[in-house]
Structures are given as structure tokens and as C-alpha cells.
């Protein structure tokens, strides 16, 4: 080690040897105690609608199915919003808000049984209109899911008046999945009193409100993750909550390991944006004023749209310093 600590040395990753030999444990690698149950989510095939019937009798009739969890089984608050916005139910009561939204969970003796049984649910939803594009949502008068914010510096109006030239335009920036290699796997172990221990691949553990127990009763253990990249900042909440609720209800360890397709469709991902920009500049190309109107596709709930949107607007400057700028917009 140098006098600056590890700086300037060739320090190896402390798990490298375990990782290259396959001995580094991720959540799904933890040995399952005898009696471990497996949960799987049943999800909506409708983007927006009113739930008329959720008949799980065929699911429950499957050999090896122990039970199901729906909105009525939630002991605490039916909300997994990472910003406590109260807009993100574990399972919806009445209204489906997106295609792929989890509606219920099946708990069974094996993952395969739970997954196949989930397909047998009879779900009746009266479809409501939906829009997918942020500009369409604004035009249709959809509300912002998080409060819009304006980032402003200097006298932008004066800047545009002084500017000899303008460039105006619109650009669209695509969204993407975070594509962590390890999915949203969660494993809950019941303990005495209200306690539960959750092993989860999460970047941000906050579930106690769903269980309706004191925060200290919930212990979340994360040895390592197979990638997160922001995709597990809040989205693990639902999976961990389902595993924990089931573990307490049946007093058995419960693991949930969604297939990659469900992992992607049941969770919201990195926003896409549409930005209208207006740049005023002088004859030498020096920027006098910048204005940006940002619309982000935030999905049905606030989640981390506020911070993501704020970051996007802050990064509008990149490495430049604009003396006169204004960034505002919508977060439908």
C-alpha cells in the first residue's frame, strides 16, 4: 500500500477470487431451508382498466399450491412507493394501471408449480383508455405523477432578446432497461414475534410499511448484487414485500425469483424523454440563453421520477456553464 492508501496500487476486487470460481453467493445461491416455499406473480395483460373479477380458484386447486396473496391480504399499507407517495400498491384493489402490473402472488412448494398455477387465474378487467407516450399524455391532460420543477439561472428572456441567432428543435431520448444480470430475487425467512429477515438483491431496502410492523422488525441483508445500475433502487420493494408477507403468513421461508420477462414487465425502467429546446447564440456561436422543456415518461407512479427528472435537467448543461438557462416541463 502506498502512503495514499490504495491509491496508485493495483488492489484486487475483494470478491474476485470467489467470483471467478463461482463461490460468490448471490441471493438465489443461499441454501434453502427445508420447507422453503416459492412465490410467483400473476400480472395484468391489460394496460389500464377496472378489475371486475379476480377468480383464483383454479390457481388454488393446483397440487402444490399453498395459497395466494392479493390486495386484501396486505397487513400494513398497500404501498411500496420508495418516495412514500402512496401511489404504488403491491397489488391494486380496483384499478390496473399498466400492462404487466402484479395483481396477485401464488405461493407453492416449487417455483415451477407457482409459475404455472399463476397462469390459471381468471382475471376480468374492463379496459379503460390508456396512452403510452409522454406528449400524448400531456395532450390528453394526464396529471404529472411527480411535481414539476423548474431549474433557472439568470435572465433567460433577456438572453434570447440579445441573441442574434436561434436554434429550436425537439429531440427524443429512448428509455432502456437497466439489465442487471441478476434479477429481482428475494428470499424471506420468518423469525420470532414480528421479525422477518429478508435476503434481497436490492439497492434500497424499505418494506416495513407493507408488513405493518415496526421498522426494526425487518432485517434486510444484501451481501452483493448481480448488478443494479439504479434498476434495483426501488423496484425490489414489491418482490421483497411479497416474500416477507408470505413468509410471515405461512411461517415458512419464501423465495421469489421472477423470470426475466416478468422482471422487466412488472417493474418500471429508466425513463425516456422528449425535449423541446431553444438555444440563443451570438455571431461567434457563444450561447446566450438556453431553454429546455422536458417531458419524461414516468409510468403510472412517481417512483424515482422526481430525482431522475431533476438529474436529467441538471445534466442538460453537461460540462458547460450556462449563465442564462431555464429547464422545465412535465412528468406525466
Amino acid at each position, binding site marked *: 500500500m502506498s502512503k495514499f492508501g490504495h491509491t496508485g496500487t493495483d488492489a*484486487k*476486487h475483494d*470478491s*474476485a*477470487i*470467489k*467470483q*471467478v*470460481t*463461482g*463461490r*460468490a*453467493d*448471490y441471493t*438465489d*445461491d443461499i*441454501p434453502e431451508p427445508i420447507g422453503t416455499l416459492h412465490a410467483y406473480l400473476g400480472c395484468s395483460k391489460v394496460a389500464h382498466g377496472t378489475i371486475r373479477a379476480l377468480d383464483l380458484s383454479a390457481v388454488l386447486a393446483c397440487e402444490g399450491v399453498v395459497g395466494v396473496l392479493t390486495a386484501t391480504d396486505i397487513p400494513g399499507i398497500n404501498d411500496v412507493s420508495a418516495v412514500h407517495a402512496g401511489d404504488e400498491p403491491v397489488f391494486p384493489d380496483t384499478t390496473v394501471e399498466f400492462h404487466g402490473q402484479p395483481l396477485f402472488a401464488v405461493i407453492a412448494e416449487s417455483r415451477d408449480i407457482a*409459475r*404455472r398455477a399463476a*397462469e390459471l387465474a381468471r382475471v376480468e378487467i374492463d379496459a379503460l383508455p390508456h396512452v403510452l407516450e409522454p406528449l400524448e399524455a400531456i395532450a390528453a391532460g394526464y396529471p404529472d405523477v411527480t411535481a414539476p420543477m423548474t431549474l433557472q439561472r439568470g435572465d433567460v428572456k433577456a438572453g434570447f432578446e440579445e441573441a442574434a441567432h436561434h436554434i429550436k428543435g425537439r429531440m427524443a431520448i429512448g428509455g432502456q432497461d437497466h*439489465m*442487471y*444480470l*441478476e*434479477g429481482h430475487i428475494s428470499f424471506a425467512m420468518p423469525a420470532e414475534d414480528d421479525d422477518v429477515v429478508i435476503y434481497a438483491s436490492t439497492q434500497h431496502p424499505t418494506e416495513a410499511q407493507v408488513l405493518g410492523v415496526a421498522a426494526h422488525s425487518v432485517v434486510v441483508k444484501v451481501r*452483493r*448484487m*448481480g*448488478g*443494479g*445500475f439504479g434498476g434495483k433502487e426501488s423496484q425490489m420493494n414489491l418482490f421483497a414485500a411479497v416474500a416477507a408477507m408470505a413468509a410471515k403468513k405461512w411461517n415458512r421461508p419464501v423465495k421469489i*425469483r421472477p*423470470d*426475466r*420477462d416478468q422482471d422487466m414487465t412488472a417493474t418500471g425502467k429508466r425513463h425516456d424523454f422528449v425535449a423541446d429546446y431553444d438555444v440563443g447564440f451570438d455571431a461567434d456561436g457563444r450561447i446566450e440563453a438556453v431553454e429546455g422543456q422536458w417531458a419524461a415518461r414516468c409510468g403510472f407512479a412517481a417512483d424515482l421520477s422526481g430525482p431522475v427528472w431533476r438529474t436529467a435537467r441538471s445534466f442538460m448543461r453537461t460540462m458547460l456553464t450556462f449563465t442564462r438557462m431555464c429547464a422545465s416541463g412535465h412528468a406525466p
Partner: protein
Amino acid sequence: MGKRRHEIRFLLNGEAVCLPEVGEQETLLDYLRIARRLTGTKEGCAEGDCGACTVLVGLLTQDGLRYETVNACIRFLASLDRCHVVTIEHLCGAGGGLHPVQQAMVDAHGSQCGFCTPGIVMSLYALWMEAAALSDAEIETALQGNLCRCTCYEPIFKAARAAAELGKPEADPLALERADVTTRLEALADGARVDVAKAGDRAILSASVADLADVLAEHPEATIVAGATDVGLWVTKMMKPITPAVFIGHLTELRQIVATGSSLRIGAGASYSEAEVALARAFPHLLPYWRRIAGWQVRNMGTVGGNIANGSPIGDTPPVFIALGATLHLRSAEGVRALPLEEFFIDYGKQDLRAGEFVEAVDLPLAQAGMYHATYKVSKRRDEDITAVAAGFAVRVESGMIAETRIAFGGMAATLKRAAKAEAALLGQPFVEASYEAAAEAVAEDFAPLSDWRATAEYRSLVAGNLFRRFWAEQGAGQVAKLEAV
């Protein structure tokens, strides 16, 4: 009735495994992780895309014991009969410590979150066994089927280069146990028809190609499973029943590739990787296209016959083979028949395949002197992606006039099809740019493509026309292969 066996037998690392109850849907990955707690092999996508589940499978071939990388997530357990499965847990160096590939990955900071790492180590290990000095292109090709989200790959490339300098393949534990493994695998090859079941699911491995015809006559409803690179997803993604499944990957005679005087005959069971070796000799200009079919693991598993029999409108091989004038050979207990490959594809999901019939081989004519030949694949990603539009072009020019054309497209219709109107626009016309412009316009009348998540209909139509312009431009620049007499 020939010999029957009612258990699956294979080697797992150092151990002989014998399973009397196996369903056709059970995957190697679930067996490793759940039944055996060999958790070094990871599940990332369960569809053969990410490579986190990469393991080696050794099998006896005409050239002896050969190990290849496969995706354990879509490799069915029953298909491993007579194979040697090698997982990350079995890998070690000559002295029992880290293997050179593992050491190089540690030294080069090749892991971050580490979840893809065991799969990457296995791919690099397979590469390390094959080649001493590695070009960047070879390393990239070996890693086509391994996604890493953290490292940006450069440290992994460094590890691959460094590992090539470390250790000796002949001193590698797998090399040292080679003779022993060969003997053990030979002992498992008992020539029996294997027939196993579990809870109503059934897997059959025919004893020979002739026996395959018999099995299919007995079970015309059976699902034929070769490399499982597509059927695997029917199970892992769609949960579709495939029982009874008839596995054919172990049939060495179906994997044979034979060059006769006038044609190259590729057995239906030959993997893309096996076919690549033969194609590299006969049609070397096909290699860049060929290596854009999926990733290394999938090319090791997937078969040429499966790609045809499956009838997917975006199959990668048929456009190329149709342009080469391929003949398809079908077989059943009733006998054999042959037809031009393009006639096999009737409609979406409908091929000219009768009950009990299977694809036995495809013949590619070698004598095509004077034929300009080119193949194109357009997809969102360069590597390991499913085709949006694929095309095979073959054009013969005589005395400045276009005398023969075979131009086939994938991704443009419900089936793989020749571009009849575009071909008509070219045939008999002078070999000049204007003829290709006319063909680029005419191809719009050949196809009414669909929009899906890979491409819009408008994009596909534009690309199809532009590929004619590209063919003209590239042949003008000397970049299109002109086939020679054999």
C-alpha cells in the same frame, strides 16, 4: 426391437450421473442449481442470451472428445446423455489453485458485480483450450454470447489475452483426464434407444437415424429437439408442453458434413459451429454472416437442420442456402424425398413436412462458377441478435447480362421467400446500376412486411431495397465474392 434403456447417463464434472426419472422439460441449469446446488452457474435470462449459465459440454465426435460452450438454461437435461458436463466448480489450475483464465480475470479486474463472471470464465476457458495466440476478433467472437453490464469488456479482453500466456493447455486438468473421460463416455454409448419419463413427461433419444424414423412413426405428434435454442424457449418462456420430445443431438451420423465432388452435404444435426468449419472451406465469404448468427454458445448448440425445420420467417440460414441453390432432404419410415429448399416453406408455421418426417440434410451445390454471392443480416445489435431482415443474393453474369438470379429474404414475409419480382427485374438485364435500381423498386412489390419490435414495416421495405443498392455498390468495389469452379 432394439435395446432400450430407461435412464439418462452422463458425467458431471468428475462424477457419473444416472437418472432413471427425467422429464423432457427439465433444464440442465435447474438440475445444476436446484438438484445439485452447483450454484456457480447463474441464471440471467433463461433464454440463451446472456451467457451467465455457460458451461462446457464434452461429447464424442468423429474427431474424438470435443468440449463446447453451451447455455445451461435452455439445454435440456435428457439431451446430455453420453456427455461430460463441466461447470465452473470443476475448473482449476494445474496445481489445484486458480486456473490461468481465472487468475487473469482476477489480475485484470475482469469482474465487478461478478454475476456474469462464471459464464465468462467458462467461455474464456473454452477459447483458451482452442487457441494460444488470440486476435481481438477471436476474443470478441468467443464472448458474443456473454453479456457483462459492469466492466465494459476491456478488462475481460485483457484477461483473455493475458491468460493465453499463462499455463499450458496440455497440463490442464481437463486435458489430463481426457483419456479417462473418453473411455467413460464410450462406455455410456451403448447404442440403446433411451426412453425416460417423469410425471407424465417423456423424453426419447433414438438409437440411430433409422430408429429416429421408427420413433417418429410411433409418435408422429412428438416434438423433435435438436439444439433446443428455440424449443428451449417454448419451455422456459412460454411453458408450452413438448411431450413426448425426441432428442437427436447425440446422433453422430446426423451431424456429418460431407463434401462430394459437386455438393456439400450438411447433416441436419450439425451445429452452426460444425457447419462453420466446412463452410469456411467451401464458401469462406459466408463467415462474417455466419458469425453473426446468435453467439458462440448458441452456435455450438443450434443446428442447421433445426433452423430450417423450425420454419421461422427470420431463420438465418435459409436465405443464404436458398441463394446457393440448396436441396433439402427429408426422411421418414416411408422413405426419403428431396425438394428445393424454398419449396419447403409454405406459410407461417407451415412447412412441407409430413407426419413422421424429419429433415435429414441440406445439399449446397459447389459448382457455381461465375456466381456473385453475398449475404446480409440487418439487426439492432451487431452480435447475438435476432434478424430484422436477412438476405442472400446470388447473381450470375454472362457477357454483361444477368443470366441467373436467386435472391431470398428473411424477415420480409410470413415465410422465407425468394424475391420473385425483383429477380424478374434483374434477369436478362444488363449488369449495370440501373438494373439494380429497378430491382430495388420491384422488391417493394414482392413483400408486405410486418412491423414488430425489431423493425417497422417501412424500415424493412427500405432496407430490402437498399440491399440491392448495397450489393451493386459492393460488387463494384470488389467486395462481393465471385464463386469459382471447384
